[in-house]
């Protein structure tokens, strides 16, 4: 009998009392004395360790390593950036899978391919046949390097102890990092097989692996065996070769596209040439798309798919059990068992994970491709037909730091219909609106950086007559580009818009301003649309080319949602055919200050990608944008780039105390008129092109993409209000801007003195903008923001540049604009800092103190208060019925 192989941690498992079993020829722990259920739960709740050293670790290197890997893997290897990993499949010519695997790119001169332990020998035989034709080598380093999976919400905290606080990887999945763990070299990957959003795989030299295991146990991690590894990956819907891939129970090869992950693992990029299995996979892919469209005409190519199922009757479903629909056999269960989870209570962000353990009977099945979510099927469980249902997924990992079980049949609470008359509902609405208005305007201290309160004059103008009218207008060449209006009764608003454009030109110090866009996001869409339109102006006979490359701030680093491919950029950005992703590259940030752009690294990125469009601007912002330095560099390089600054948040700070975008070299400035600027909620697009410039044509495109491109009705009420706001801004901006910046720095220092953790550079008093950011603990942001709201302090919860997403938010984002407008100075912000510390650090109830403080500051500053103005305003209010 062949002796079983042992990993570098074999003795550790035995010493820790593990039950050892044969897994693919390896002597592995299936569970420890804790048991599979406890090990599964501890992973979801804290952090577990899995010995994954039995998996095959192969190094591929050499001049032709990329063509080789493109040929033998299904993924687009050229789309894999440095310090990233990708899931892939090793295909066979017939379109089935030899194995599934993960490819890691830690350096530019080699790749690490990790394969399943049970398939390592088979994979090497397959790959070695092919590598002969390529100038590259495959080296099996399985014996020299071991691997531990560290998975669970606390895994990051534990590993950060070993790096001494240095960030392990970028926050997104599949990111890599190389570290020194207390003197031991460690290759870290944010990857895993448990479905946990926070989890890592660590590769260390064999002689270091026992040290790592024990050290992590010291820090609170617990060992988990293959039993829990299987229940966790099943809950996460991840395939296991030999069950969801490979051969079905009849011995027939399973097509690669029967596994849902194939959509992401398989690429048909030209860069891959005629890779192994391409023809068969292309056929499967085409039929897969048909099936997704509920077109089953070629279902024989892909007759069965892997679908998650939940048992509805009492029992347990297991691999190989037959599945039936209406009495007809349609396939088999591929994996199944009883899986434990912690019950959750509450909804949305208020969901609380309790200590109560519940079990559910779930599985995955290889069954008819025409099944849809909620379809009922039957499973033969040792002679009895038990009812089961097809579900979407068993687990979701998009609300870090926890993986959340999705229980079939769970329904959100429904709003109860009161049955009252509409008249009563209308009266009730007025009462509730009044309460809300008073609360927000008189009791709350409003620190949301994107918000402000406009003056009474602005607000009332917004509600007066032009508010419900139309005034579409367009320049007509025959009339020397004079605007022609399509509606009657528009003389007043025509004049207002012309005056508004003049005021805004003076404010910006630029040549042209478009004021018809009605939001910041729309102003960006208008700019992107214009850029694309102008780019294609000499070729209207073909489908317009999209924009690419675009250089922006990544949303995790505080970049605007608007400037991301999922935001306003969505329909205007090209796909890079090599990477098969949006042609977007991000501003690098300083290693010692993640809130600040690294100008030198940015220059390298610009040299490499030669972006067509550079978008400055952030929603989480503590620093000025380096517009001047980048303008200088772009001009020196002679690049044909458009520099745009989306000043959404900081539009009201244009001036001596912050930045003057056009003087620094920006060509297009977009923004919201209602954050630091005094306006109602609208947008604006400004340019500095002169009529004789080539790019003046781009300005003309901006005009037409505003109307008729983005609006028909451009909301005349708020446009009128915006003119008043522009008068206010141009009159009071110097005093206002100075006060905001002073308050921001002062507030930041007060918060620090009160014992809070303020983000940013202390050398510049933490901030150069209207924003202050405070760190309150990973994952605590939403709770603390809710607690502050109960105390009448309104702030944003915010994910810092190191955090995965908003549900993991560990910080608060605050802006000074609104309270500065109501007259807060450093003394008031200091009082506020004390109150906030009481709430955040000592969980005190200060709601009354806050209301009292706010109550003393309800009169707006930085607006006209001359007697003559007040009289005119009073007259206006009376006449329009307010």
């Amino acid at each position, binding site marked *: 009998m062949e002796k079983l192989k042992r990993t570098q941690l074999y003795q550790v498992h035995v010493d820790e009392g593990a*039950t050892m079993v044969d897994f693919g020829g390896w002597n592995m722990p*299936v569970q420890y004395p804790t*048991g*599979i259920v406890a090990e599964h739960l501890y992973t979801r709740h804290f952090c577990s360790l899995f010995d994954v050293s039995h998996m095959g670790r192969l190094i591929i290197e050499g001049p032709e390593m990329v063509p080789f890997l493109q040929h033998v893997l299904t993924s687009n290897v050229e789309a894999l950036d440095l310090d990233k990993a990708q899931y892939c499949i090793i295909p066979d010519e017939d379109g089935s899978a030899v194995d599934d695997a993960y490819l890691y790119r830690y350096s530019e001169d080699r790749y690490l391919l990790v394969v399943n332990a049970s398939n390592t020998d088979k994979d090497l035989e397959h790959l070695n046949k092919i590598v002969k034709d390529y100038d590259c080598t495959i080296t099996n380093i399985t014996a020299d390097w071991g691997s531990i999976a560290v998975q669970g919400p606390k895994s990051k905290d534990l590993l950060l102890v070993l790096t001494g606080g240095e960030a392990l990887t970028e926050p997104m999945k599949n990111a890599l990092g190389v570290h020194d763990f207390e003197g031991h070299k460690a290759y870290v990957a944010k990857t895993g097989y448990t479905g946990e959003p926070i989890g890592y795989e660590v590769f260390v030299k064999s002689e270091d692996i026992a040290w790592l295991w024990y050290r992590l146990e010291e820090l609170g991690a617990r060992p988990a065996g293959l039993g829990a590894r299987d229940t966790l990956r099943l809950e996460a819907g991840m395939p296991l070769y030999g069950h969801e891939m490979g051969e079905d129970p009849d011995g027939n090869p399973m097509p690669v596209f029967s596994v849902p992950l194939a959509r992401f693992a398989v690429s048909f990029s030209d860069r891959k040439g005629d890779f192994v299995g391409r023809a068969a996979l292309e056929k499967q892919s085409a039929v897969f798309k048909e099936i997704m469209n509920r077109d089953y005409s070629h279902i024989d190519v892909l007759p069965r798919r892997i679908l998650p199922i939940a048992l509805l009757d009492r*029992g347990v479903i297991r691999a190989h059990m037959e599945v039936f629909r209406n009495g007809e056999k349609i396939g088999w269960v591929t994996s199944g068992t*009883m899986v434990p989870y912690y019950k959750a209570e509450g909804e949305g962000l208020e969901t609380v994970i309790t200590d109560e353990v519940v079990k559910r009977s779930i599985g995955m099945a290889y069954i008819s491709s025409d099944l849809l979510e909620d379809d009922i099927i039957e499973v033969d469980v*040792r002679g009895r037909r038990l009812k089961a249902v097809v579900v979407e997924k068993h687990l979701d990992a998009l609300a870090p730091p926890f993986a959340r079980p999705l229980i079939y049949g769970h329904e959100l609470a429904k709003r109860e219909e009161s049955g009252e008359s509409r008249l009563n509902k209308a009266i009730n609405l007025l009462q509730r609106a009044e309460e809300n208005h008073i609360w927000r305007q008189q009791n709350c201290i409003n620190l949301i950086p994107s918000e402000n309160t406009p003056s009474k004059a602005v607000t009332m103008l917004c509600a007066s007559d032009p508010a419900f009218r139309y005034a579409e207008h367009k320049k007509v060449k025959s009339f020397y580009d004079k605007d022609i209006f399509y509606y009657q009764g528009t003389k007043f608003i025509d004049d207002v818009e012309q005056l508004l454009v003049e005021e805004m030109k003076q404010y910006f110090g630029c040549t042209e301003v478009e004021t018809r866009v009605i939001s910041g996001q729309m102003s960006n869409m208008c700019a992107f649309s214009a850029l694309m339109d102008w780019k294609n102006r000499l070729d209207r006979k073909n489908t317009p080319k999209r924009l690419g490359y675009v250089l922006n701030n990544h949303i995790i680093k505080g970049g605007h949602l608007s400037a991301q491919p999922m935001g306003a950029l969505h329909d205007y950005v090209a796909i890079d055919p090599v990477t098969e992703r949006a042609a977007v590259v991000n501003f690098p940030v300083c290693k010692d200050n993640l809130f600040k752009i690294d100008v030198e690294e940015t220059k390298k990125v610009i040299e490499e990608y030669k972006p067509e469009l550079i978008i400055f601007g952030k929603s989480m912002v503590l620093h000025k944008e380096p517009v001047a330095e980048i303008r200088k560099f772009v001009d020196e390089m002679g690049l044909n780039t458009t520099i745009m600054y989306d000043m959404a948040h900081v539009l009201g700070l244009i001036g001596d105390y912050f930045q003057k975008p056009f003087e620094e070299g920006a060509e297009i400035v977009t923004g919201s008129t209602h954050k630091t600027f005094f306006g109602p909620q609208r947008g604006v697009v400004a340019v500095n092109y002169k009529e004789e410039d080539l790019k003046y044509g781009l300005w003309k495109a901006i005009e037409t993409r505003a109307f008729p491109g983005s609006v028909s009705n451009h909301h005349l009420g708020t446009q009128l209000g915006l003119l008043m706001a522009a008068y206010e801004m141009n009159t009071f901006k110097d005093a206002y801007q100075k006060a905001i910046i002073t308050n921001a720095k002062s507030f930041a220092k007060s918060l620090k003195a009160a014992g809070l953790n303020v983000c940013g550079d202390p050398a510049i008093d933490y901030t150069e903008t209207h924003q202050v950011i405070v760190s309150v603990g990973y994952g605590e942001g939403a709770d603390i923001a809710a607690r502050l709201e109960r105390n009448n302090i309104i702030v944003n919860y915010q994910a810092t540049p190191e955090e995965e997403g908003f549900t993991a938010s560990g910080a608060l984002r605050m802006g000074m604009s609104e309270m500065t407008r109501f007259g807060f100075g450093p003394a008031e912000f200091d009082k506020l800092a004390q109150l906030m510390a009481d709430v955040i650090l000592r969980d005190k109830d200060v709601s009354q103190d806050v209301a009292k403080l706010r109550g003393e500051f309800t009169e707006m500053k930085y607006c006209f208060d001359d007697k003559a103005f007040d009289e005119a305003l009073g007259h206006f209010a009376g006449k329009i019925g307010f």
Partner: protein
Amino acid sequence: MNYPTELKYSKTHEWLTMDGDVAVIGISDFAQDALGDVVFINLPEVGDDVFAGEPFGDVESVKAVSDLVSPVTGTVCAINEVLLDAPEALNEDCYEAWIIKVEGVTQTEDLLDATEYEEFCATEE
């Protein structure tokens, strides 16, 4: 491993005790330890007949299913409903967590006492 001396044991790892004329049946410490975390149990219904040496239900762990073999022939007069929702009770205290009670016992398998059973288990390892 714990094998109370007042109980009898079968070679398929069930325990039995007589409560008057009623046989009370469960699984031994060896069985629950070998099973690991019990996640599900399939029980007969009250009134069902059971037969000595034949399976009367099964118990499921995360990884496997195991038959429960009756040491007696008779009629089920009670099932431990606690186990339906909390099968892990078998791991927590297998002698407290009886599984079925049988009346009208006509036949009993050859059973071992605690010492003989302990020796038997040693050979099973």
